[in-house]
């Protein structure tokens, strides 16, 4: 358990630049790929020292972010430490490469998230792949194209400007003669180092990027051919299982493994408080663990009942307010319209359908681990630390996994599998059970958010005070124009292990803020959309609010106690979004159903419209769980609902009619879209409930079962 958001999992506002050597040396490289053109992207600061290095004979540059290789058959391989987890980045990055390089999309292969093959990368989080890796790959591709044009021009002894690059060839339009890229590079050993100075194609001229190409290798996902981390099979592989303590922070008092020692082919691995088994198959491994007799000592620990008081009482000022301007107290006291409200957010679980899994294989003192993680290099470092190895003795491979939603940043399963494999002397596969995944992973932080705000009688905001205890600082600042502000994230002592989750705390902060906006609009007797626009200068946020409202038919119908309409908007990580929701309420049955959601989205130039639509619609559906019913119930160091039968996630029957409206700003750089799409569903639904007369300042809003020891039954159950 951690005292607060784990520092390793702390929200990364900006991806820091960190540079490490190319994993392969030149000899390895030629053995792997043969001759061809290798283009490396380096940071501008490094580029200054590397400048002039080009065309063969030189050692490879030390510090690169990504690289690209074109072989004699014109096949393009692109190497990046980013990972594909279902967000479709494998496809959209390949589109950007194909676009700038002017090659058929099918000839581009992305090699991703492999610590021995790809350059160092901090990890796939914070919606950074599109805005950071996208331009880097585009720059490399544009530079490669330029080199190929120059190479062809030199062979034909004409000016490069008279040639054009198209579909993997350099063409001389006057004579129609051409060279394939492979012909221009084949057999040679060409190295080129670039920095971010290439002129890139304008999104308005895109032909491959900007189109709805289907998911790369999509066929492998409908045939079962794709191998997820838990599907990896190695020769002589055994299966592991770990004995879990009966609660968090437990110490092992005694262990009787005699019943298990007798089982054929089963080995018990007991090192300190770690107890695991290896067996010829997963079934036997699980049965063996169930036969272990252990006594644990578990310290007393809090439950949901004390959660919010605990978070508030234990919070500290952290780094001080995120923003402070004007005389907030004075403005709050003087204004005619004033709303104060506390909002609470329960812990929720990522519950990726593929639980944490790893296959570990030792070769002498080197270890290779296949595992599902958003941070292959981070897991490599964790393994190196755990086993006292150098980083280059550890090889982590991330097969495109059964997703993570921010929940797979850490390497505990990789370490456990490596530990079992070391003891067994054979490769070991370890797949966490669903209940292990629900209990021993980390959670989206719970939080208490307190907002006090005031407006003039004409509805102009004058003061805004927003305190977030524990859940985080993402999107904590209001996008609305408010002269007097105090916005402050207070880290607290979290009783459960917590970490990143899709959009981090933006979902919680936007939920509270946008709920509060509706309470103020109500007090000011203004329509919620009019009230927002009256206080909003940000043109991009205004545009998505208006787009969602228009597509929804906002204002056409009035809310009633049985039917509510709500709107909410928000922005974070370069994405702008707004949603309108319609809910149906059955007061007699105490049920709420989301009937219809229209969500508008804008994140600059769209790289793949269908992939983006899929992300936003998926975020709406996933958002329903955290909005209405998902919550981790816990007491005495145990999770009380660690099964899908007890922890309800959105299902087919929960899905409303969904419409996604995409705004394509070809004049703006592309931002990431994997996360922020989730932030407006909950407040739009809360505001629809509010308009129907139901006030639910809590996430979840309609829990199916009351929290243990809760003083009152839930309003909706």
């Amino acid at each position, binding site marked *: 358990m951690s005292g607060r958001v784990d520092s390793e999992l702390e929200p990364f506002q900006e991806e820091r630049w960190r540079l490490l050597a190319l994993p392969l040396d030149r000899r390895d490289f030629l053995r792997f790929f043969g001759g061809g053109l290798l283009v490396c992207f380096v940071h501008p600061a490094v580029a200054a020292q590397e400048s002039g290095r080009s065309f063969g004979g030189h050692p490879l540059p030390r510090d690169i972010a990504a690289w690209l290789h074109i072989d004699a058959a014109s096949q393009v391989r692109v190497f990046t430490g980013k990972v594909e*987890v*279902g*967000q*479709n980045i494998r496809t959209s990055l390949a589109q950007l490469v194909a676009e700038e390089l002017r090659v058929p999309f099918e000839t581009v292969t992305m090699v991703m998230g492999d610590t021995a093959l790809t350059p160092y990368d901090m990890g796939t989080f914070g919606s950074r792949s599109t805005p950071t890796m996208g331009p880097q790959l585009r720059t490399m591709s544009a530079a490669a194209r330029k080199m190929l044009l120059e190479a062809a021009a030199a062979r034909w002894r004409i000016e490069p400007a008279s040639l054009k690059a198209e579909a993997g060839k350099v063409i001389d339009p006057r004579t129609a003669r051409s060279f394939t890229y492979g012909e221009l590079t084949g057999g040679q050993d060409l190295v080129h180092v670039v920095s971010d100075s290439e002129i890139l194609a304008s999104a308005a001229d895109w032909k491959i990027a900007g189109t709805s190409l*289907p*998911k790369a290798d*999509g*066929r492998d*996902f*409908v*045939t*079962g*051919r*794709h*191998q*997820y981390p*838990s*599907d990896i*099979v190695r020769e002589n592989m055994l*299966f592991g299982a770990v004995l879990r303590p009966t609660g968090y922070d437990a110490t092992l008092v005694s262990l009787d493994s005699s019943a298990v020692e007798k089982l054929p082919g089963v080995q018990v691995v007991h090192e300190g408080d770690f107890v695991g088994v290896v067996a010829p*198959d*997963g*079934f*036997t491994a699980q049965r063996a663990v169930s036969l272990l007799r252990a006594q644990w000592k578990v310290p007393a620990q809090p439950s949901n009942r004390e959660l919010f008081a605990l978070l508030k009482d234990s919070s500290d000022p952290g780094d001080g307010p995120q923003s402070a301007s004007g005389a907030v107290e004075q403005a709050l006291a003087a204004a005619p319209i004033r709303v104060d409200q506390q909002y609470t957010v329960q812990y929720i679980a*990522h*519950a*990726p*359908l*593929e*639980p944490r899994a790893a296959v570990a294989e030792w070769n002498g003192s080197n270890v290779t681990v296949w595992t599902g993680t958003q941070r292959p290099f981070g897991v490599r470092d964790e393994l190196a630390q755990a086993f006292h190895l150098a980083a280059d003795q550890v090889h982590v491979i991330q097969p*495109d*996994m*059964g*997703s993570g*939603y921010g929940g797979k940043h850490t390497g505990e399963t990789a370490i456990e599998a490596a530990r079992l494999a070391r003891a067994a002397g054979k490769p070991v596969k370890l*797949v966490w*059970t*669903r209940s292990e995944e629900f209990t021993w992973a980390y959670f989206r932080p719970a939080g208490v958010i307190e907002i006090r705000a005031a407006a003039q009688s004409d509805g102009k905001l004058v003061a805004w005070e927003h305190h977030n205890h524990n859940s985080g600082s993402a999107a904590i600042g209001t996008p609305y124009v408010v002269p007097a502000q105090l916005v402050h994230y207070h880290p607290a002592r979290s009783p459960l292990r917590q970490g990143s989750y899709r959009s981090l705390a933006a979902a919680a902060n936007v939920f509270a803020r946008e709920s509060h906006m509706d309470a103020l609009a109500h007090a000011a007797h203004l329509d919620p959309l009019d009230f927002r626009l009256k206080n909003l200068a940000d043109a991009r946020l205004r545009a998505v609010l208006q787009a969602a409202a228009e597509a929804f038919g906002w204002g056409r119908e009035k809310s009633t106690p049985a039917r509510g309409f709500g709107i909410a908007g928000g922005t974070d990580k370069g994405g702008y979004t707004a949603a309108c929701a319609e809910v149906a309420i059955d007061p007699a049955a105490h049920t709420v159903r989301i009937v219809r959601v229209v969500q508008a989205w804008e994140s600059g130039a769209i790289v793949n419209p*269908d*992939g983006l639509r*899929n*992300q936003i*619609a*998926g*975020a*709406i*559906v*996933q958002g329903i769980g955290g909005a209405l019913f998902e919550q981790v119930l816990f007491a005495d160091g145990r999770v009380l609902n660690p*099964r*899908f*039968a007890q922890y309800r*996630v*959105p*299902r*087919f*029957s929960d*899905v409303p009619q*969904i419409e996604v409206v995409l705004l394509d700003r070809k004049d703006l750089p592309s931002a990431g879209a994997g996360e922020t799409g989730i932030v407006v569903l909950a407040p739009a639904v809360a505001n629809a409930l509010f308009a129907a007369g139901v006030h639910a300042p809590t996430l979840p809003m309609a829990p199916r079962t009351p929290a243990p020891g809760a003083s009152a039954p839930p309003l909706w159950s």
Partner: protein
Amino acid sequence: MREFVLHINGSHVSVTASPEESLLSVLRDHLKLTGTHYGCGEGQCGACTVLLDGVATRSCLTPVGGVGDTQIVTIEGLEQNGRLSPVQQAFLDEGAFQCGYCTSGMILNAVSLLRKTPHPTDQQIVASMNGNICRCGTYPRIVAAIRRAADGAAQ
């Protein structure tokens, strides 16, 4: 431990396992048919769905000892001579996945549904698919894919 002869994807396969071992574990750990996925082990998510005599069945709750000589079809057995089955093709055409981990189970459950009900209403699709979880939230596309497969069969 006992030896079982299973009929999987048109072939007879011999496997030695404990009778109470789940079919899921036998498929994945003994036979390396890893397209069938583990999601929960209690029949709540549908990731492990296979067809037993054409009927969608949770392989995680099916002891191998009870399978007998039923015809087992896993996701690996749907493609015939390089041709995708109509439901597989419809999932591909609709882009009805993100991470794809639930896809095998979704497809097999849909095949079972369409076998029984060739032209289901949306309500019938939701009712029969509701035991399958997609955490990426691609449900609307999956419904569209099943509709597409049903419409294709009608032509």
